[in-house]
């Protein structure tokens, strides 16, 4: 039977929720084929990838620890994405946030001060915002493409970090590793349990999720931004300024990315190092899309992507599979998600019978 593609009268709300499930399922199927081709039993490998990491308390702690920055950044990015402001450079804003916060942590005159951690949060946020303000200014004033500028600024940020940790900020007692001295205790988030790395910075993420929901669903500014994203001409018609959305979208996403970077330095790492992030800023783009740019979806998406990181590491250790697997899974997930989105607006129907031939 032949099928044709037909536009739906109204976008399917069922598919809106089913598409991420389809995408996840397809990723697993193709992933299994890939495991089989690598010579591993797919079922065992999938178990090792997705289930084993969550069977210990430490596993859960690591899962949440990695999900936290993904969700935090994802929330910020989604606000911009809703307004068609495409910040692809959260990774760079994360790095600058971590640099600024670590600078405060390392050089603040009173390393015991209770103000240190809050100051570092502010410094991280300000750093991320400042880094995002450059593409915002260029886009609002000169109509440059923020996708390119934010992406290129990421490379500058990474190189700046590299310069600092290889040069002036390198720990003199650090055996030449590209990292700073350890941050003082007052500059670190408290751990829930000294056995595990999960720390109180997760509360920042929880607050951010609620704030994001409130901003997008309840605030007038969030409404104006969504109008600008869905129909730029309608925004101009109503008199909503596009530059407002650009600034807001980039500053919010830059600010939270900066906080996420700060939380890495002041959390599991305890110092600034050349490898501050395993690509959280980029993975958060996938999180925002898997989460349909909605707060709840972003939480689920963040948990899924975090599990991909954990699983990737786990099968590297236990089965000796390549580390590129994590990136492949991330890529497949996004690819299948975008493909499944097609089903929200279109459907397959049987091909109509051709016009009958022959005179009756």
């Amino acid at each position, binding site marked *: 039977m032949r099928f044709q593609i037909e536009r739906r*009268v109204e976008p399917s709300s069922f598919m809106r929720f089913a598409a991420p499930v389809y995408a996840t399922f397809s990723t697993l199927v193709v992933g299994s084929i890939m495991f089989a081709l690598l010579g591993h039993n797919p079922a065992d490998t999938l178990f090792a990838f997705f289930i084993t990491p969550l069977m210990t308390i430490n596993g859960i702690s690591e899962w949440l620890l990695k999900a936290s920055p993904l969700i935090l950044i994802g929330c910020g990015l989604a606000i911009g994405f809703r307004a068609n402001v495409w910040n692809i450079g959260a990774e760079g804003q994360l790095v600058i946030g971590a640099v600024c916060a670590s600078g405060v942590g390392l050089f603040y005159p009173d390393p015991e001060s209770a103000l240190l951690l809050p100051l570092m949060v502010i410094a991280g946020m300000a750093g991320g915002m400042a880094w995002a303000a450059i593409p915002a200014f260029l886009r609002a004033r000169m109509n440059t493409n923020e996708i390119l500028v934010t992406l290129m600024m990421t490379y500058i940020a990474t190189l700046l970090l590299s310069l600092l940790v290889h040069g002036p900020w390198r720990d003199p007692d650090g055996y030449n590793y590209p990292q700073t001295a350890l941050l003082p205790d007052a500059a670190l988030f408290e751990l829930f349990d000294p056995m595990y790395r999960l720390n109180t910075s997760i509360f920042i993420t929880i607050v951010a999720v609620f704030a994001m929901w409130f901003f997008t669903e309840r605030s*007038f500014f969030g409404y104006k931004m969504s*109008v600008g994203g*869905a129909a730029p001409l309608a925004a101009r018609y109503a008199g909503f300024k596009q530059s407002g959305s650009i600034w807001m979208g980039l500053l919010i996403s830059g600010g939270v990315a900066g906080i996420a970077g700060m939380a890495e330095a002041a959390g599991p790492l305890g110092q600034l190092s050349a490898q501050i992030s395993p690509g959280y800023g980029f993975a958060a783009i996938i999180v925002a899309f898997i989460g349909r740019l909605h707060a709840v979806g972003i939480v689920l998406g963040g948990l899924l992507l975090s599990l991909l990181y954990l699983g990737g590491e786990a099968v590297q250790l236990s089965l000796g599979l390549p580390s590129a697997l994590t990136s492949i899974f991330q890529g497949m997930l996004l690819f299948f998600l975008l493909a499944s989105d097609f089903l929200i607006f279109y459907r397959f129907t049987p091909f109509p019978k051709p*016009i*009958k*031939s022959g005179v009756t």
Partner: protein
Amino acid sequence: MTPRLELRHICKRYPGVIANDDVSLSVMPGEIHAVLGENGAGKSTLMKIIYGAIRADEGEMVFDGNPIASHGPSISRALGIEMVYQHFALFESISVVENIALSVSGKFDLTALANRVRDVSIKYGLPIDPHRFVCNLSVGERQRVEIVRCLLQMPKLLILDEPTSVLAPQAVTKLFETLRQLAAEGCSILYISHKLDEVQVLCDSATVLRNGLITGTAKPKQSTPIELARMMVGADLPETHLDPSTTSDTPFLNVDHLTAPSDDPFGVSLNDVLLSVFGGEVVGIAGISGNGQAELISFLSGEVLFKGADTITLDGKDVGQLDAGHRRERGLAFVPEERLGRGAVPPHHLSDNAMLTGHRLGMVKHWMIQRGKANDFAAQIIRKFNVKTTGYESAANSLSGGNLQKFIVGREIELGPKVLIISQPTWGVDVGAAAFIRQALIDLSRTGAAVLIISEELDELFEVCDRLHVICQGQLSKSLDRKNTNVEEVGLLMTGLKSNPNSNIGEAV
């Protein structure tokens, strides 16, 4: 005699709508056959099925006695079926003959083709210079190019989809002469329209469609317009009432000598536009699209700011440098011709769309949306303006064009504006809803507001306006009192053929 074309029981379904339901008709050689119907009646779908651009779900087609088994545009061309679409398919940046060469098979010889184009265009009274660039052609001339392109193929059946919607009255008369000449030579013509007067003048027979079904066939020359309208609309046409008005002492909207050169090579420069709209009256701007209406409207609405536009005043105060939002705060409301994407946000529900311009009515408190108020406002518009929808939670793009237009017009009127600007108020709107919208505009003006209508439909403007202007090539004519002018005069002004003694139109042409 064998019919040129016979359709038997054609059906075409789309999700949620049946475009054609058991449609049968036949056209004889040399016959001019009208397919009449309102917007959305299924006329265009039927023509595309005949041309092979879309495929029918059921039914059969017979051409010159031979059934067509598998259909497509290339088969149509081989059979001699040609179609002039409502929206032209011409490349703007190349010449007429180059455009035509793209669709002509055979040896590529531009010189020979240019000569053929010239011959055909002279023979059929469609003068066109084959070497002009399409971007410099008026809409009427572009249509000529499309028709000439079809005629070069020596068609046996020519399909025209609402060909006069872009033409001035005089150009319509010329087109009809061409079509009659073609028919006399044996070419069959399918003429799609919703304009009764044209069909009565031109066509030998008519098939009337409503909601995809044939509601009647007629000999238009022997039928009265009322009979045809009843078949088309299913009821008698509603009438609007234009009461006498008392106007305000000073204009609510005033434009003083606005001159705006266009940066865009395809745009139109505005030249010395003078316009006053007083409270309590409806003023219309007639004109063929692309003569500066879009530019003038975006300056008036504040969507485009222009330094030289500071001569615009609203209720006596300068607003020329204020953006759309600030002008709205001073009592301006505006309905653009693009409903989806400009007047409304397509995927947003009606409550959100009510808020687009209605948020000023207390729907925002401490930067927070008062959802209840937005819902009430949307519900009020739906109720008062008879919008057919399942409720304020439906997405704007799930509404039909006419219903969405009622919603947008309703929203702008409910804002209680001092000045309402409305562009193409009833484009693509069915007859019933159109009459409703027209009456609503008149009623608004009679409560003291100033209403400015920009429309291509002369009948509409004559029905609702107290005064008229005509825009042509960026110039606005002087004000014409509706009672002292007629379609003829306005038509001449639209084409720039007549110079108005008190305006500057004549000098420009």
